């Protein structure tokens, strides 16, 4: 039975939240094409016990590939398993999440199959029986529509553009046979170093609180960390100016040479709004700007702005949000 393949990302034995988005996107296409969703998750033995939930996002079947060789991400190993699956199940579409793993794996899978690939899809539509992808280019300055000349269609979704929706299916769990030996891989993950404090990643968080040079010195980012903590579901981001100055790690940089984020809510605090910064956050649902300069370009893209000194405004904001949370 042809179907839609959804790659379910697991890391260190945990299914990542983004999996709900990938499976939901796959469900949408499957309904339009009248086919099934096959979710595939790979990891170390023991993973099977953790996949029960996936049916609820609309997977008709959940295939679990367990092997010591898959305990950590491997471009070669994962590509082999995925490509074999796609061939065996004659999948029409293969969807990947727009994460470091998904964007590493998708191009390899497409190249091995000799088919087209697109990343950062904001929508996938079925037009006259074929899949058409919508994706931004030029850092979001231009939108594009791309069609595919072969199958399967291989695409990575942009994170945070699909809202994970429950659409309960049997989600029957099946074992996938994997015969791999990590000793054959030319690249092996030796170590995973978590960022300090196990924080939410800016690329994934539904709310991002970003700070720029207006913060004046690195210690003042405490103000933003407090605000993020009060919000609960927020990650701290940064402009390039403060990353270049060494105040914040590059992993937090938002913009053209940093991360592209599409959160529900984006706070730009003491950030002027240079075009390269906007490139990374213009697809946020709502933007709030705090800047003492009423002429700052960030106000041109902000839904809500407050003009004034961030050192007075941010503590007040944190306090009000705490109050709200305690209600």
């Amino acid at each position, binding site marked *: 039975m042809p179907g839609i393949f959804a790659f379910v990302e697991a890391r260190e034995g945990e299914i990542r939240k983004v999996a709900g988005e990938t499976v939901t996107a796959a469900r949408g296409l499957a309904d339009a094409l009248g086919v099934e969703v096959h979710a595939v998750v790979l990891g170390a033995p023991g993973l099977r016990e953790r996949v029960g939930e996936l049916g609820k996002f609309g997977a008709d079947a959940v295939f679990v590939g367990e092997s010591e060789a898959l305990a950590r991400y491997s*471009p070669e190993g994962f590509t082999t398993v995925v490509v074999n699956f796609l061939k065996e199940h004659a999948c029409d579409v293969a969807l990947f999440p727009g*994460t*470091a*793993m998904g*964007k*590493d794996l998708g*191009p390899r899978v*497409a*190249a091995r199959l*000799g*088919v*087209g*690939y*697109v*990343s950062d899809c904001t929508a996938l539509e079925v037009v006259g029986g074929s899949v058409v992808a919508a994706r*931004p*280019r030029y*850092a979001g*300055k*231009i*939108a*594009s*529509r*791309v*069609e*595919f*000349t072969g199958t399967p269609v291989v695409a990575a979704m942009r994170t945070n553009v699909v809202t994970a929706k429950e659409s309960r299916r049997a989600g029957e769990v099946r074992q996938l046979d994997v015969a791999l030996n990590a000793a054959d*891989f*030319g*690249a*092996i*993950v*030796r170590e*995973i170093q*978590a*960022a300090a404090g*196990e*924080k939410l*990643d800016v*690329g*994934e968080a539904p*709310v991002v609180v970003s700070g720029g040079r207006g913060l004046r010195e690195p210690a003042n980012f405490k103000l933003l960390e407090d605000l993020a903590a009060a919000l609960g579901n927020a990650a701290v981001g940064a402009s390039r100016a403060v990353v270049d100055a060494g105040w914040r790690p*590059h*992993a937090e*940089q938002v913009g*053209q040479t940093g991360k592209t984020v599409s959160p529900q809510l984006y706070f730009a605090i003491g950030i002027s709004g240079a*075009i*390269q910064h906007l*490139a990374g956050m*213009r697809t946020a649902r709502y933007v*709030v700007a705090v800047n003492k300069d009423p002429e700052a370009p960030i*106000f041109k893209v*902000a839904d*809500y702005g*407050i003009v*004034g000194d961030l050192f007075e*405004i941010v503590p007040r*904001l944190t306090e*009000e*949000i705490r109050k709200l949370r305690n209600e």
Partner: protein
Amino acid sequence: MKSIVCVKRVPDTETRVRIGADQASIDPSGVKFVLNPYDEFAVEAALRQKEAAGAGEVLVLSVGGTDSAETLRTTLAMGADAAVLLKTDTPVEGLAVAAALAAELKERQFDLALFGMKAVDDDLQAVGGMVAELLDLPSATVVTEFSVAHGKVTARREVEGGTEVVELRLPCVLTLTKGAYEPRYASLKGIMAAKKKPLEEKAAQVGDAGTRLQQLSYPPERQAGRIVGQGPDAVPELIRLLREEAKVF
């Protein structure tokens, strides 16, 4: 240490891009083109490897039109030894470019094939990984820093919430992001020297991309919102708007 770096000529990030009459390409008039910023990191990394080893070669490849020769000259001025322009008349991306680069790399011997994490025009973030796959080489993408010792590469790559330390066999493919390789500027001496360095041109063996760009369009402009107020007294009104209008809390 022999490195081959693949670079692309792209519009400067400050440039306003306008859609061409065909609705499927951009209008190049008045656009300033530069070496893709991520590829600068790759060139820098290659130069540092050569310097650290005290021997080796840095070869730079680009698939593109005649204008891309200028971009290759920039890399020669930075310190690369030689460059090859793989010429195409039409813009190509994705698997089509990967095939052309893989065909050239296959003819050559190298330890490292370095790429930018992504080209800032198509924003695809794919070509490096595709080339690795076509050549059946190990790869690590989104690398901030790496070292080479005892025939192995140790690379740090950015993943959500942390970094992965990956060990790779040589030869291998790495795609670079911002990290340890702040690119150098070309010195006047470098620019002079670049004029005498070899820059070969040949036809690219472009493959099939498997995709077709149907149409470009301008995304809806973000509407400038409103200034809620001045100073901390505007905070309660902001919270009200976020709750009642935006409904984000």
